[in-house]
């Protein structure tokens, strides 16, 4: 298995543990990722509010880089996957937009042929690698851990851009957790918004969202939370203490990246998976693992 790799901005700065743990996991599983080092930010649903056509063209430029390698794109960020999937869909559906995009890309001597697919590594693991295949390599199963999945909006909606999982009853993370030997809990908020997109603008509302959904997860008896989105991770882990303070509630729920979850079950040294970089300590779960 080989993909063009779009790690996204956050995995390369504020969540380096996601980037590092992914590298360890794919090495162990024999998945080859060719990083698109010259790609630009997907725009995160923000850039299109200043210039939507620029956002389309920049993402199309990234698609061309993958096409040149003759590979589909995998991301490790739900938001990147969602935004790029949306742009790809727009180009697929609108021949005028496609023509205009290629007219602009032509100035860089680039052409987008419309062949590239974009998927999250979580989806690639489930659909392409196969959970049975993954299970066969597990050396440290989750041993009945109760785990709260947090999907992130762009993993699920709009379904036209995602093309994976069921936005009305998501199960991809649960399937992964169960395959690795854990138990997924359900709670009000697992498919909701972590608050990150308005963190810089509506700080208080953003922190309240994180606090309520984290607390709901905690109340189910979950020992930790797992997410495929580094932006959700920023909101739910990095800002968790602030969220606790804003909502006047003690939560203390470790939140880990999906790659760290897989990495642990494959027996990779936790130090290589970057658990020490979290705000809410995951030491307790690592000891029990």
């Amino acid at each position, binding site marked *: 298995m080989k993909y063009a790799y779009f790690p996204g*901005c*956050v995995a*390369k*700065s*504020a*969540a*380096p543990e996601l980037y590092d743990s992914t590298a360890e996991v794919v090495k162990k599983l024999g998945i080859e990722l060719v990083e698109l*080092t*010259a*790609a*630009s*930010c997907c*725009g*995160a*649903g*923000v*850039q*299109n*509010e*200043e*210039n*939507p*056509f*620029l956002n389309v*063209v*920049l993402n199309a*430029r990234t698609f061309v880089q993958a096409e040149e390698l003759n590979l589909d794109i995998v991301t490790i960020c739900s938001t990147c996957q969602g935004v790029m999937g949306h742009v790809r869909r727009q180009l697929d559906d609108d021949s005028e937009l496609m023509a205009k995009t290629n007219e*602009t890309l032509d*100035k*860089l001597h680039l052409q987008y042929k419309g062949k590239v697919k974009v998927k999250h590594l979580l989806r690639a693991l489930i659909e392409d690698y196969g959970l049975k295949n993954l299970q066969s390599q597990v050396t440290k199963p989750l041993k009945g851990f109760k785990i709260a999945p947090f999907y992130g*909006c*762009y993993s*699920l*909606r*709009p*379904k036209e851009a995602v093309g994976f999982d069921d*936005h*009305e*009853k998501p199960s991809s993370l649960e399937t992964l957790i169960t395959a690795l030997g854990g138990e997924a809990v359900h709670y*009000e908020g697992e498919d*909701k*918004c972590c*608050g990150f*997109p*308005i963190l*810089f*603008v*509506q*700080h208080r*509302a*953003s922190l*309240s*969202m994180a606090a309520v959904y984290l607390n709901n997860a905690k109340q189910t008896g979950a020992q930790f939370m797992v997410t495929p989105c580094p932006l959700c991770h920023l909101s739910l882990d*990095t*800002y968790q203490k*602030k969220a606790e303070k804003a909502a006047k509630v003690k939560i203390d729920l470790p939140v880990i990246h999906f790659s760290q979850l897989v990495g642990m079950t494959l027996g990779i040294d936790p130090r290589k998976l970057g658990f*020490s*970089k*979290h*705000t809410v300590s995951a030491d307790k779960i690592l000891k029990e693992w």
Partner: protein
Amino acid sequence: MQKAVFRICRFNPEKDKAPYYDMFQVKIDEKMSVLDVLEDIKHEQDASLTFRRSCRSGICGSCAMKINRLAKLACKTRTVTEISKHGEVLIEPMENLRVIHDLVVDMDEFWREIYRGKPWLVADEKMLSDFSGENLLMKRQMETASKRADCIMCGACFSDCVSRVFDKNFTGPASLAKVERFVADPRDMAGRERIANLVDIGVWACTHCYFCWSQCPQDVRPVAAISALRLRSVNTGDKSQGARHVKIFSDSIRKTGMLNEATVFVKTMRLSSLKDIDLMLMMARKGKAPSPLRKPVPKIEEVRLLYKLTQGEKKP
């Protein structure tokens, strides 16, 4: 016919202290909508069950309610689909609205928000006085306005809006879709005023959770309307924190190809970023504080050229 379970939230504020759930065993066939089953329950099992319905055809918007935790029209939702996905049908009143009785909610709050967006056409007085026939428009001129005008005011988007739960100043998806319906209408003369009003009615509080897009029975896509309104606002002098964030974000990509979290955070939040200085120090200790000195990606000149080439494209 097959058997199914309906679990329905009941509440009569005049006598109940808190909402509770009633279970109903029902017989369903493949064609039955959730509304059909609710009618059966009302007629055959419990006449006190209270819910709104009218057209039964997905047009009037009366029967919006939460079906297996998501707001939908009961008349447009097939029961067997819900059963096969969830094993039962859980029915609750819409969120973000006061419950009057069982599944009937008070829509006043929803309508108040719609009115905040001034949902009427402001026509050109001169054109009205000179009026001598039809005001014909090209189909293309009305595409966006027509899409947003498909709204049937059922309240499903308002119910499932995450932002509305946490920020009561956020006017909600339907209201903003209605604003765009008039902003995008070439006959409307109040566009500038409508755009200037956006910050006050909370346009920057939307998180892009896409529930409104997913739950709208008419495919109005309010979140797309919100992005289009923000775009107009950003490019017509909006100086709010939300607009500033968009410009700073985009400028960051122009400079390095990637998002520079450190500078975007400080420039957007300005002085209030100091409140999170403890967090930044903690991140630095853990070796994950984003560096303000981000190296440009290879071939950054391509990215910058695309910025230049698309300069004139800043419209919806």
